[in-house]
Every structure is written in C-alpha cells, then in structure tokens.
C-alpha cells in the first residue's frame, strides 16, 4: 500500500513533462516585411513554454546584417494550460542592398527539447515608398574645393563637411582624411557645427577647414574624404509588436538614450581639379611664392662698427603658400658677410593661408658701407596669372671704425645651413637655419676670462699716475701750508740777527760795518717790542721804546750818529772800532734786549 502514492506522483510528473514537451514551441517574426536599404528592422524569436533557450548567436544571411540586441521573459496564465513561461529574443536587421531575403528557420534547444522556428521573408527596396533616398540619408559627407583650376604649388582653401540628420546623435568625426596623391594638405582645423538645409531636409553640419596645395599639373583627383565616427540611430518601431510597452516612441529616440549605437564611415565624393603649370618667364627672385603679398624691411642697429653684426628683418604679409616661400636673397653683398636667414611664420587664420612671415638675416660689415644690401622677391599673382616683384630698397646705414682683417668664412658644408636653391644667386642665402653655423678658420682669436676690473695691468698704470698726481699735490700743499711763511721769515730774521751779532763781536769788523750792524740791531730789538717796522725807528724812538737809562741812551744816540755820519758824510770806513766803543755799544744793545715791556707802551 505504501508504494501507491509514489506511483501516482511518478505518473503525474511524466504527464506534466510530456505536456511540457508538447507545449514548447518557437516562432520567428519581423517588425516589417518590407523596408528600405539602411532602415533597421526588428527580428524576433519567441519561445513559448520555456524560460531559457540556447538562441542562435549569429544568423548569417547574405545581404543582411543581423545583430542580437536583447531579450525579455514573460509568464502568461491560461485556464486551460495554466502558467506558461515564454522568452523573446530580439535581433536588429539592416539590409545593405535591395532584394528579397529569407531568414531561414532557426533550430535550437529550449526547455530540454529542440525547437525550430519558421522562416521569414524580408523585402528590401532601394527607396522607401518611392521617396528620394538622398532625402532619407541620416548622414553623409562632401569635400568642397571652390577653386577648381589652381596653379601648381598654390595653396587653395578646402572644406570637409559632414552632415547628420537631426534625428540621430553623433560625435564629430575624428581626424578626417583627404585621400589621394599629388597634393599636400594642411592639418584640418577644429570642427565647427552649424545647421543647414539640404534638398529641403534639415541637417546638422560639421565643418573642417584646411588648405590643399597641388604638386603636379594636369587633372588631379582630390579625395575622397574619409572619416569615422559613432552615431546613435533611432530603433525601428515594429508594426506587429504594438502591444509592447517598449513600443513607446521614447524608447526609439536616440536622444532618450535608447537608440542603436553604430560605428559608421563617412566618405565623400572626390573632387577633380585642373592644375595649371606656372607661367613661363619667372623672375630670378621667384622662390615659389604664389598669392598676394607685401614686403617691408627694417634693420637694427643702424649704426655699427666694422665687424659688429646687425640684423635685417623682412616682413612678408599677405595670403598665399607661406610654407613654400624661401627667404629672399640680398642682391649685392659686397663688403658684407651674410649669414643664413631664418624665417618664422605667424598665421592669421586657422588654415594658415594668410599671415605674416618674418625673415631675419644677420650681416657683418667688413668695410665701411652706407647702405645695406637690397632685396627682391617675386611672386605669382594667381588672380592675374602674372609674376610681380616686391622690391626693398637698400636701407641706409652708418658703418664706422677702421678696416679689419676680413675673416674668410668657410663655405658651409651641405649638412650645415644648406642653400635654399642650387641656382646661382648673388649670395648663397640658405633656407631657414636648421643647423649650426660652420667653424671659424680665421684664427683662434684672442681674449681673456679675467674681467677688466680684475686685471692688474688695468689698474696699476692708473694707480701709479694717480699716486704721482696726488703726491705732487701733497708736496704742493706741504710747501704752502699755513704759518710756514712766518716761520721762514722768523728763521731768516734769526739768521740775520745771528749774522749781525757775529759781526758786532768780530774784532776785525770795520768801523763802518760795525755801526751799521749796531744800529740795525738796535732797530730790530726795538721793533720786536713795538711791532713797528725797524727801518722807521730812529735813536730817540728806540730809546723811548726800550726805556734806556741815560748812559745807554747816550751810547745808542752815538751809534746812530756815527752810522749816519759814515753813511752820509763818507768818513773813512777803513778805521777799526776801538774796544771801548765796542764794549759800550754791546752793553747798550744788551740793555735793549733786556728792556722792560712797559717801555714799549711808552
């Protein structure tokens, strides 16, 4: 009895399993059976009676791109069958060409059994419902070159335009490339976006600007332009699955984030140019400039010594192929040493067609000159097709100093400052310096690492001369110091008095000399006390000043009398002085020296 319930359960399970095997089925369907090339169509495989299935990961059909995009699961209750699970696998189909395509039946395992879908057929037409396919394009690109007949070497503007439908989201193409050969292309500018209407359809357009320079004559195919980007396309809205809540247009809108992301390649049609050769008769100063230009020149400094460098700056302004313009050559460099010119370009626009190019060239005068070398630069005016020549007159300059031994600059090697052109020119003016200048062969030169102020030979001669000058000044000041004249006069006076005293004491002194000396001594001693001039003092004044006693006063008067007598009467001057006279005179003079000071006041 115990095995009866188990037998019933087993029978029930087998019945349910058989029922399940019988109820698992798979059906395939399309959201639309007819579509245009490029229109996405949704393909569904719905498996009923199973919660999972090993759905096909890829469905290869020639001409169709079928990509799985998602799945959903549902449970449905039916009173007759009970609760039934189902799973839906969704694929995105995109036709790459028109035609009728059959998606074959797909066989796979689901719910433990193999199931097989039905085959479906999709008809793809080139146009959608007879409308113009151009108007239906979501994105496309074009290459715009306005000038179709440029000269070879002429830089012409070009634009890359990438159009996108406002229904899709897009990223601006990264690094669009213009393919082809026989021309050079400048780096494209940063993209600019705008909104335009093409054939009645509104588009967002991304514009890249550049310039193209043809390098060969004749017919030249430029392009196509190729660029890659990612777009977010709107999902198709299946007509037969309208009962799904996901059929709301919101879930198809790429701007809601529910679109279909796709990498796409934008490709334009090529543009054919008819490139003209340069007209014959190019001037010698034509170095490849094509466009419209002006040329100015300035030099600095304008006053130099022989051997000192100066810089000539040529400013070329305008619009044209600046990247192919070499520095103009100076016409006559006699008396100058010319160094390679360098060029620096400053564009005024994004495509570098217009701007300012500055050439700088260093000159060293080797002799006295009053003008700098003149310049000429010829260019081709593409508008008129004629060559025009820009001239820079010789700038005035002042070169001073004596002639120096002109160094002989070695001819630059090919690797050093290469010449711009093999054509003979007035002077070899190489292209902008891309290498070092050549070695000097005119001797090692002279110089010292010791600054002038630290050289003995700079200061020593000056110090010697200054010391001599200051020494002479010191001697002068010493000799002319204050009080020196008085001292010298006192010394002279003392010497004179000593001489007079010696004469007075000398017994061999003649009478004439003795009395002259005695009178003078008396005057000097009286003058010392009175401060008066000695020669103005007579015997009375001396006696009064010195306050002599009568004896000494008489002796002084006798001295002055005899002196006057000898001087004015011409008495015999060979007579000798007696000892008595000498003693009396000397005694009187001694009293004069010892006379009290009060006598001076008297």
């Amino acid at each position, binding site marked *: 009895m115990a095995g009866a319930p188990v037998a019933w359960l087993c029978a029930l399970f087998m019945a349910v399993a058989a029922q399940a095997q019988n109820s698992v089925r798979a059906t395939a369907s399309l959201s639309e059976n007819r579509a245009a090339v490029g229109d996405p169509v949704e393909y569904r495989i719905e498996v009923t009676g199973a919660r999972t299935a090993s759905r096909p990961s890829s469905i290869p059909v020639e001409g169709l791109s079928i990509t799985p995009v998602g799945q959903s699961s549902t449970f449905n209750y039916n009173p007759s069958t009970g609760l039934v699970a189902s799973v839906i696998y969704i694929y995105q189909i995109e036709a790459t060409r028109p035609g009728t395509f059959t998606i074959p039946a797909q066989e796979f395992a689901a719910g433990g059994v193999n199931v097989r879908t039905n085959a479906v057929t999709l008809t793809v037409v080139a146009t959608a419902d007879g409308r113009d396919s151009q108007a239906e394009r979501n994105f496309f690109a074009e290459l715009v070159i306005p000038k179709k007949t440029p000269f070879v070497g002429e830089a012409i503007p070009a634009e890359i335009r990438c159009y996108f439908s406002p229904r899709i989201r897009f990223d601006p193409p990264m690094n669009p490339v213009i393919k082809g050969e026989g021309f050079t292309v400048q780096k494209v500018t940063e993209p600019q976006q705008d909104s335009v209407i093409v054939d009645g359809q509104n588009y967002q357009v991304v514009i890249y600007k550049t310039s193209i320079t043809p390098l060969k004559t004749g017919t030249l195919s430029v392009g196509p332009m190729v660029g890659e980007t990612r777009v977010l396309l709107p999902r198709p809205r299946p007509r037969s699955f309208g009962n799904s809540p996901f059929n709301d247009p919101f879930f198809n809108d790429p701007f809601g984030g529910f679109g279909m992301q796709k990498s796409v390649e934008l490709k334009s049609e090529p543009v054919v140019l008819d490139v003209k050769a340069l007209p014959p008769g190019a001037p010698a100063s034509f170095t490849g400039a094509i466009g419209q230009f002006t040329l100015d020149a300035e030099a600095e400094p304008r006053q130099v010594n022989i051997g000192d460098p100066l810089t000539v700056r040529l400013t070329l302004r305008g619009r044209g192929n600046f990247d192919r313009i070499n520095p103009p050559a100076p016409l006559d460099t006699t008396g100058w040493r010319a160094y390679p010119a360098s060029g620096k370009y400053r564009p005024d626009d994004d495509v570098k067609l217009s701007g300012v190019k500055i050439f700088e060239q260093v000159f060293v005068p080797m002799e006295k000159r009053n003008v700098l070398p003149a310049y000429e630069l010829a260019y081709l005016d593409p508008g008129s097709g004629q060559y025009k020549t820009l001239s820079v007159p010789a700038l005035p300059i002042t070169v001073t100093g004596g002639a120096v031994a002109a160094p002989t600059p070695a001819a630059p090697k090919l690797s050093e400052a290469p010449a711009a052109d093999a054509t003979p020119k007035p002077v070899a003016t190489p292209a902008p310096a891309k290498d070092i200048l050549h070695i000097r062969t005119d001797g090692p030169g002279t110089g010292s690492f010791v600054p002038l102020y630290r050289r003995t030979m*700079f200061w020593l001669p000056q110090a010697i001369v200054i010391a001599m000058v200051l020494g002479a000044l010191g001697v002068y000041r010493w000799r002319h110091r204050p009080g020196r004249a008085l001292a010298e006069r006192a010394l002279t006076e003392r010497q004179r008095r000593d001489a007079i005293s010696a004469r007075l004491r000398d017994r061999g002194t003649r009478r004439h000399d003795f009395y002259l000396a005695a009178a003078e001594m008396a005057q000097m001693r009286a003058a010392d006390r009175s401060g008066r001039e000695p020669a103005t003092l007579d015997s009375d004044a001396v006696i009064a000043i010195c306050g002599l006693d009568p004896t000494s006063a008489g002796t002084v008067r006798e001295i002055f009398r005899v002196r006057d007598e000898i001087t004015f009467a011409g008495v015999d001057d060979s007579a000798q002085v007696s000892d008595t006279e000498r003693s009396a005179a000397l005694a009187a003079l001694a009293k004069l020296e010892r006379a009290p000071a009060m006598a001076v006041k008297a």
Partner: protein
Amino acid sequence: MNVPRFILMLAATLIFPLAALAETDFARGNALYESGQFADAAKAYERSVPGGAAGPNLFFNLGNAYLRAGDQGRAVLNFQRALALRPAHPEAAANLAFVRRTLSLPTPAPDGWSQTFGWLGVDTWSVVAAFGVWALVAGLVAVLGPWNRVTLGWSLIVPGMLVFGAGLTALTGLHGGARDAARAIVVSESGTRAHYAPADNSRDVQALAVGTEIRVLQDRGSWTYAELAGGLRGWVASSDLERVVPN
C-alpha cells in the same frame, strides 16, 4: 747683451713655440672637423687651449666639434666660453641658440642686477669706475692745487664719486658678468639631479638637463652647492659640471 734684451729673447724662446703649437693644433682641428672626424677635432682644439691660443673662435669651433660628436653639454659650455670672451660673437650666439632650441633649454632669465646694469658690459663698467676715480682726482687737484678752482673742483668731485659708486655697484652686482667664475654648465648626459643634501640618496630638488646653466655657491669635495633655475638651491655632483671660466 743687456739684461732687457736677454729677457725679451728668453720670453720669445719660451712663448713663441707654444703659440705656434697652438696655432698648429687649431689648424689641425679645423682639418679634422672638415673631414668629419669631430671627436678628433675636439681633441686637437682642446690641445691648443693650454697653448695660449684660447680665443673665442677656438671655443666656438670646439663647441661645434663637441656638438657634432654628440656631446651637447660641452658644446653649450664652449659656446658660452666663446661668448664670455667676446659677447658679440654672432656665430657662437646663433649656435648656442640652436642647441638650446634642440635641447628645449630655456634661455636663462636675467636677474635683477643684470636687468639694471647689464646694458653695459663688465669691462665698460670697469672703465666707468676708473673714469669716476679720475674725475675725483681731477676735482681734488682743482680744489687743492695751485689754481684753487673750488667750484670746478666740486663739480668734478661729486659726479666722480657718483660715477665711481655706480661702477662699483654694477661690478659688485654683476659678478663678472659672462666671465663670472661661478657659472657652470651641466655636461653630464646621465640624468644629473640636484639634491637637498650632498648624497645620492637624498631627495631631489630638481632634475637638470644637459646644458643647463647653474651658479656655484660652494664646493665641498665631490659635491657642489649651486643656485638653480627659479631661485632653488641644491647639491650637484661636481663631476657633472664644468665651469664656464676654466680653472
């Protein structure tokens, strides 16, 4: 034979052969350079340096030879030496600018002293200072000499003192200008670094590219304390440096 003539002959006997040898090495260096043997040319030029022919053209050629031989640090060093000897050496200035551009080395920014006084060279400032001294002496002579020109004298003394003061200030601040003995160039290409302390494992202050100019503040054995760009200071291995003014 008198003594001065003997001394002259002795000097000629000793110096002229050295100069002749130097000229020979210079010419040999030129020939080697022309033939593309740049390393040998550099050696020949280097030989002529102690021989007394150390002129600006020699250092310029030496810089070229080193640059061609791939030694960019010594190329910068010798272009700087040529410019130190002759500031208006256009070829050396052009090639130094080229190397700096190649190495992406910034042109050293002039300091405040150079901005203030650099418009005249150090030698010119020396002459200015000497001129001030002479004006001072002339003023003293005018005032204290036999002519007794007091007004003239003071009108010489005061400007003379000012000019001498300006010259002395400039010479003090400029440190010899381009011939500053403290200038040094990084010649090592093996990643020279300035450290916070004189030790290899010390933290880095700054990485120094070859050709960078620094100013030596102090030498201590195998390390050099230097002033770097931006006012920074750090210790650099002395073997990575060479002075612009040769020792």
